């Protein structure tokens, strides 16, 4: 029996229509600091090689979610499928949104953008979601995947995400419940830009 889907879209668990295209493993330069392996890449740090991009295997048909670097470098071969609405793009939290924005005339021609969060503690994903929605006016599906657990979900939603691929060893059903963690947030964010004092009339004490 196939494992049930771990993908949440809006408020429901759905089957994933998209095939994730990954880069082939490259020569990862292991950086160490004070004896510890460096786990985070800095924002803007280049992390893929031309060989990796060239060697990335793109499935011949169906909806594909391709890495930003592959999208940028191999656009001619993806153009027809892009026009057919079958190309989504994913980026890592250390990659620059400017690169994505510059690579496509109309960001809303992408039916799906996904952000890969390598480690739970990497909060850059929240700012990326916010910027995609408010600065770049992206309107289609915005997905978080990678180390995505229920504790991020409410925040991701508030930052403009509407799709979450929960880490394989966790239950998407459980995670779904957390989307309703708080009924009334204090501050305006992407999902609702009105802070509490513009939404609710909180009368003065007596």
């Amino acid at each position, binding site marked *: 029996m196939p494992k049930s889907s771990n993908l949440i879209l809006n408020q429901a668990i759905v089957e994933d229509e998209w095939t994730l295209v990954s880069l082939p493993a490259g020569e990862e330069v292991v950086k160490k600091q004070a004896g510890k392996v460096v786990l985070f890449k800095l924002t803007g740090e280049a992390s893929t090689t031309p060989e990796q991009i060239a060697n990335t295997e793109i499935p011949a048909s169906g909806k594909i979610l391709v890495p930003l670097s592959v999208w940028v470098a191999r656009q001619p071969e993806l153009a027809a499928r892009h026009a057919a609405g079958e190309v989504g793009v994913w980026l890592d939290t250390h990659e620059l949104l400017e690169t994505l924005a510059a690579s496509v005339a109309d960001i809303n021609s992408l039916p799906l953008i996904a952000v890969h969060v390598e480690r739970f503690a990497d909060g850059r994903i929240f*700012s990326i979601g916010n910027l995609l929605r408010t600065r770049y006016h992206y309107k289609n599906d915005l997905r978080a995947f990678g180390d995505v657990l229920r504790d*991020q979900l409410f925040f991701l939603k508030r930052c403009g995400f509407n799709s979450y691929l929960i880490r394989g060893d966790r239950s998407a059903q459980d995670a779904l419940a957390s989307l309703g963690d708080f009924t009334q947030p204090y501050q305006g964010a992407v999902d609702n830009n009105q802070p509490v004092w513009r939404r609710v009339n909180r009368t003065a004490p007596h």
Partner: protein
Amino acid sequence: MIDPRAIAEIIRQWSTFHPEFALLPRKFKIAVSGTKEDRAIIQAHDIGLEFYHDDQQKIAIRVWVGGGLGRTPILGSVVREHLEWQHVLTYCEAVIRVYNLHGRRDNAYKARIKILVKALGVEEFARQVEEEWQHLKDSPNTITKAELDRVAQHFTKMPYDTLPDHDAGFDSAVASNPAFAAWVRRNVHKHQQPGYRAVTLSLKTHGQAPGDASTEQMHTVADFADEYSFGELRVAHEQNLILADVKITDLYALWEKAKANGLATANIGLLTDIICCPGGDFCSLANAKSIPIAEAIQMQFDDMDYLYDIGDLELNISGCMNACGHHHVGHIGVLGVDKDGSEWYQVTLGGKQGNDANLGTVLGPSFAADEMPGVVQKLIDVYVRERTAEERFIDTVRRIGVAPFKTHVYGEKKKEVAHA
């Protein structure tokens, strides 16, 4: 003076479960101050908000970013000289967004915003914030006057009695009782409400761990709060307790009871009002014990008249570079260091909290525990020798520099093997 509490409360609400800043590279602290003296050490916080009246008498905020103590002590820099209060949330969002995206996450020691500000340079950092802010400015998180007024109503004044600001009984007690007068001078503070004063209860009894209070003392203090100060008690970061609203007519009775309970040492702001972290006696991160050093210094300077003669002086002790005792901003700072498994103490000079904050300068090689009271004594000797009339310790240090102190302290140590 500006009361920034309502805006601070709005900031607190805004920051609670803020979705975009739920997982910053590291911890993040915002300090708010509305007084000229700055008792919040805003320059040692990730964001420091200094409220002031601008030349149109409107409330404005000077924004400091990138301060912090700990192993990399840095004072904050001004990224914006004048911010209208309405914009404080959106401006903080811009600051924190730049940090969230670009702050280092690969090395916990380099992940604080102070490192980012240093790496980019404050001008470039401020430029990036400004650019970001242009997109956020005037967005719905801009605070409205109505909301400020609504929140401000929660910060009501105490139900003060209408009183004259003088009391004959109090004046004659000050005149006739020198011990009471000394306590009033050091531990009692001005109040905006006529007939009231704020009182600092000293937890700095000489020879006792700074900031410690026994169960019995805490019960007594709770009773003081109920009886004399509308049931309210405040804790100062200098490790003392404050009764904020005491009637002048109650001061003498309060002093007598406080004295009987060991809470009236008249040493607030003096050398023995030491800020001291728990150190090696209690803290598993410590390099060295700090409480015994504080106690030894207090016993060395147990003569109150001598203490009054020395005057205002802040001495801060931390048991390791985490700097919980704020040693960097002590006029005299003491830091516990570990050398080959034994405890040593590094002394800094010339640190200061407040609007004219400063980080202390390391005096030289560190000292053994039993040398410390003598070292402080020598620093005081130089001050007493060099000071001009009415000059405070910190001002003498600023005027003559660290060198004369260094010479006096290390002069006789020259032949010994340097420890550091």
